[in-house]
């Protein structure tokens, strides 16, 4: 009995965890937290760093908020969330500046802007404020991994085409003509648009395939009935 409960709970935690990675991916599906997704992703490294920062902030704040959710009075909850989040963000900001000054410089103000990232406040309000600690942390980890994944996908393409490198390693040799647009602002918009288009395309393809299979199955049974 007890193990069954555990299993169920594990399953639920697992679900909360995976959903953020793909099914409810914050960038590609929910289209949230766009500013950093586009602003800092002109290189893969930036994407990873931003993702890590968000992971830290989101997990810590989700933990704290879900822990305190019954103590926080409803009318001031948003303000308290902001205070909590801002504290963690400032911590990340200073730590990064101390440990990796170059990275800190290339991420610019966007580390600080994590405070107002719609994703984080959104998760705090929509999930952590209403669920238990375990679920909230699972959700936070899943969401930030999904977020990081998206940033890496965007950053990877932009760096590869825009600079001919990946994590600084040259991909195409010295005569490569970089597509400067990719690391310029329009490139960010266009890359994300292209990803969304590709996902829609593959989704439609797989749905069509499913439909065809279903049709084929139906024809088969009907044919049998006729015979």
């Amino acid at each position, binding site marked *: 009995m007890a193990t069954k409960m555990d299993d169920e709970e594990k399953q639920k935690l697992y679900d909360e965890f995976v959903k953020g990675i793909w099914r409810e991916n914050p960038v590609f599906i929910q289209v949230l937290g766009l500013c950093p997704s586009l602003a800092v992703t002109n290189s893969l490294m930036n994407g990873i760093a931003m993702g890590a920062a968000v992971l830290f902030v989101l997990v810590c704040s989700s933990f704290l908020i879900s822990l305190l959710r019954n103590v926080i009075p409803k009318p001031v909850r948003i303000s308290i969330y902001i205070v909590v989040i801002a504290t963690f963000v400032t911590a990340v900001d200073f730590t990064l500046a101390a440990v990796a000054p170059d990275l800190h410089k290339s991420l610019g103000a966007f580390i600080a802007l994590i405070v107002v990232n719609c994703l984080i406040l959104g998760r705090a309000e929509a999930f952590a404020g209403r669920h238990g600690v375990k679920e909230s942390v699972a959700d936070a980890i899943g969401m930030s991994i999904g977020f990081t994944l998206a940033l890496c996908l965007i950053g990877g393409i932009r760096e590869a085409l825009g600079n001919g490198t990946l994590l600084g390693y040259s991909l*195409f*040799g010295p*005569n*490569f*003509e970089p*597509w*400067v*647009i*990719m690391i*310029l602002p*329009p*490139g960010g918009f*266009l890359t994300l648009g292209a990803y969304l*288009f590709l996902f829609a395309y593959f989704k439609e393809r797989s749905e069509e395939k499913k439909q065809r299979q279903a049709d084929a199955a139906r024809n088969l049974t009907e044919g049998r009935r006729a015979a």
Partner: protein
Amino acid sequence: MKRHAPDLIITTAPFLREGSSTPELMRQVLLATIPVVAAGTWFFGFGALLVIFTATVGAVAAEWFLSGNRSGLGTLADGSALLTGILLGLTLPPPIPLWMAFLGGAVAIALGKVIWGGLGHNIFNPALVGRAFLQAAFPEPMTTWSAPVSSWFSSSSPYVAVDPRTFALPLMRVKTDVITAATPLGLAKFQGKGTDLWSLFFGNTGGSIGETCAVLLILCGLWLASRRALEWRLPVAALSSVFVFSSTLHLIDSTRYPGPLFMLLSGGILFGSVFMVTDPVTTPITRTGAWVFGAGLGFLVVLIRIFGGLPEAVMFSILLMNAVTPLINRATQPRTFGY
């Protein structure tokens, strides 16, 4: 009487139509580009023709693959994709690598047209979307110009000789120290040097393939206007606006600001006015709107050419005016009869 009834066709009135059709319009503009292509080839050699051709192939291929209608000619039949490709080719610098021209054509159609739903739905001029993409992606090749071929038969640069950069492998560049030339606007902006108006008028200057020969562009524009293939208000408004704004500045300080004739004859303003400002799809539908569009365009061109960072502004100005065209259309609805 029911004997022959099933042969009957029923449609709504009117049962008469005025002559011209959309594909015919496109055909006329295509015709008008032929002399411009020829002039480009004359001035910049055989390589220029290759560039135009490749850009066109890129556009046509993209249209055929992406438009979703691949039965027969599909949407190519209306000729608009062909036109987009040629116009894009004409706005490129002559020595650009062919793969970039091809990419530009494909981007022009994909990003400029197909995603919007095809002919008639796009907000931005497809050819210029392609060009803007190229300019932002490859700023250096897109601002490297070659001088006009001095003589067809001279041994130094005969017109059949093609710049080695043209044949760079896809995604790659050819690193050579080749002779480059500056455009009249570049010369004026960065080196304070003028270009004589006759050269501008006949096109014997550096620049995009199709933009240099002013006299030909004017003739093509007049021909198109006479065939009612274009809305004359748009180019007239654009050119007058450039004239007004640049003369004003010139009057204020003639040493710092170039005169209106130079502004009108140099760069892409004439080419843009004849072929791009007139694109019906991406410009205002109302007549008042046409004047507003032209005025705004001229303002932006003069503003950016003179106070901006770039020597030339026609492309960006047209795209910016395209962007506000929906707003212009809304604001300039004609007053309905009886209101």
